């Protein structure tokens, strides 16, 4: 069981994430969009969307800091575990609360605003359950396991396990010992990762990081190799060639 959950599942999730993204990029660039509903309703969105997104960005940054950076590294720069813990607890709680509050508002808006609700697909609903579940569990883990029940140093268990998965020497025993709430949070996160490219979440990978560096005015040649075009076939080649 441990092997299945903590060795097989992460690799399946990574495969789905990478494969799905490649598939989406190759075959469904037209569907790759934020599918914004701002045209229908923008008053609530104005508050909820930045709250959620910025909260989530800090949540993700926190995950990177917590999972990717080993404990030795922070200690090497003389940051004691207690100090790290305090920062992660406070910052994590704030970011998590912002993301959860933003998401709650977004879901409320989605449910109560008629046009927005009718533009919601089943795929969206599943995604909201998974995303909301992981966020709530994550916030719960931070507040309950790390805060109320006293400090829990996930950097001795979850962190090494996470890094080992990428180093191709996964160790399920590390995960067998962690609190139940943590287990659920990680599992839900893995499922979300697997489904990520098949939901609207994929728009995160369209983040326009090149925008600040490109010129304002863009010329393209009609015969150019845009993503949707191809080289003109030469006269004698069958027109069905793809």
């Amino acid at each position: 069981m441990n092997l299945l959950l903590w060795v097989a599942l992460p690799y399946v999730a990574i495969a789905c994430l990478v494969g799905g993204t490649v598939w989406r990029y190759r075959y469904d660039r037209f569907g790759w969009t934020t599918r914004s509903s701002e045209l229908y309703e923008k008053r609530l969105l104005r508050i909820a969307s930045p709250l959620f997104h910025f909260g989530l960005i800090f949540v993700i940054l926190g995950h990177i800091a917590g999972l990717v950076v080993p404990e030795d590294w922070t200690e090497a720069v003389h940051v004691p575990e207690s100090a790290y813990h305090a920062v992660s607890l406070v910052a994590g709680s704030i970011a998590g609360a912002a993301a959860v509050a933003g998401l709650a508002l977004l879901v409320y808006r989605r449910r109560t605003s008629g046009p927005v609700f009718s533009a919601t697909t089943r795929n969206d609903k599943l995604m909201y359950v998974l995303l909301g579940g992981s966020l709530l569990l994550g916030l719960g883990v931070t507040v309950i396991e790390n805060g109320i029940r006293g400090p829990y140093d996930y950097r001795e268990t979850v962190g090494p396990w996470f890094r080992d998965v990428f180093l191709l020497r996964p160790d399920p025993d590390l995960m067998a010992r962690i609190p139940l709430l943590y287990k659920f949070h990680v599992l839900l996160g893995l499922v979300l990762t697997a489904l990520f490219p098949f939901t609207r979440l994929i728009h995160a990978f369209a983040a326009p990081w090149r925008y600040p560096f490109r010129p304002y005015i863009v010329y393209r040649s009609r015969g150019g190799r845009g993503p949707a075009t191809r080289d003109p076939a030469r006269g004698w080649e069958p027109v069905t060639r793809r």
Partner: protein
Amino acid sequence: MRVMAQLSMVMNLDKCIGCHTCSVTCKQAWTNRAGTEYVWFNNVETRPGQGYPRRYEDQDTWQGGWTLDRKGRLKPRSGGRARRMLGIFSNPLLPTIADYYEPWTYDYETLTTAPLQDDVPVARPYSLISGEPTKVEWSANWDDDLGGGPDIAGRDPVVQKISDAIRLDYERAFMFYLPRICEHCLNPACMAACPSGAIYKRAEDGIVLVDQDGCRGWRMCVTGCPYKKIYFNHRTGKAEKCTFCYPRVEVGLPTVCSETCVGRLRYIGVLLYDADKVTAAAETEDDKALYEAQLGVFLDPEDPEVIAAARRDGVPETWLEAARRSPVHALINRYRVALPLHPEFRTMPMVWYIPPLSPVVDALRDTGHDGEDAGNLFGAIEALRIPVRYLAGLFTAGDPEPVAAVLRKLAAMRSYMRDTNLGDPADEAKAAAVGMSGRDMQDMYRLLALAKYDERYVIPTQAAAEAAALEESACPVDYDYDEHGRDRTSGPFGEASGRPAPASVESFHALKDRQTTGALVSPGDRKGRVNLLNWDGKGRPGGLFPRRGKGDE
């Protein structure tokens, strides 16, 4: 100088009768799909009026177009790159569906399925957005023909800029129609705002398009465009806009809106412009100088220097020829009767308008004056300040002089042509008064009043422009041997086997042989085969003509 060519349009507002045929046919062709119910790539507005979407011209609210920063450089009015990136999670400057209108349909089915009853069954309106029964309260042309009266027309941003006091007065004075499509600007603000870089201007014909595979639905372009001519398809989550009917113009046909225009008021043609000058022109400090600045970007297609530069920059010969015959070039540059719509947005729009003289003529006629007398018309243009100021608010950032000059030219033309039509001697002084010659008057009259289909639409095809390249797509010129070292002029099993020799190879050798041989008639060997294309008229080469009879060899 970097010469580029663009297809652009001029609309003669005097002829627009506000029939909306252009809008309807455009919608049938392009936006009759789910997600674009509210979208009109072409719409016709009654001016004064709020337009579609409501009050789109009010850039204090919508922040469309460009502005100049403290150093005098161009910056999108809604914010530069950093601000746009930080604000990407919501766009408060996006018009909502209520600013356009909530599209609807009727439950027509009840008309046929209602049981026999005392009351006539009615088809109730249903929202196409929410699917619920709705109350129709606004549409893309709700204030057509000043419908709704001064309350609605008075909220026209251009009217509000002129002054509140004159409002009623001028509403008695005039009304006209303004058909609008995407401006296909030289300096598009939608493009600058697109985080994904999916909006682009085609190098060949200047048409601004949205790459549907590249668009990620950030909606910034809708904010960026001051004309609000980019729309968000709420089903696909992608931006869509007028395509200048590129599948049609590529093969030489006019756009659907032009083709179906009842008043025949649209002109399509090529304009040459200097791409290096665009930014500097758009950075002109004075709003009122932007019209002149944009004229300075256009190039004269007759100028030998321009022609040489255009050839260097790869503008096809057919496009240069079309630029010389372009009705758009004539109306904008030669006669200077067409003006850009809202140059103060600094996007360098490329769909221009001939302002309407008819309100002035109508006002004269209504007051019992001769509406075609030059003296009366000139006096009225000066006296009817309000229409001129309103038109200036639309076309020249508020400077009345260029508008008045155009109206004087149109008035002079009317008067001049009346003399001609009535058999009176042509009065050259009338033409000279507006800085034109009698010949100019005749030509302009022909273009504005009579021009037939092929004079209104001078559209070079893409295929002709690429024909030379396509001919050589088989191989580059001057090759005796192909990339595998095989003789191109002969196949493995003799002359007619293998791939056909590319035209350039065949004619190259044929011409060389013809030019260097001493023989008068056919050179005899296969390489020198003469065909109708390269035959120089010397003798009767074998195989070129069918044999006449038995003795003919």
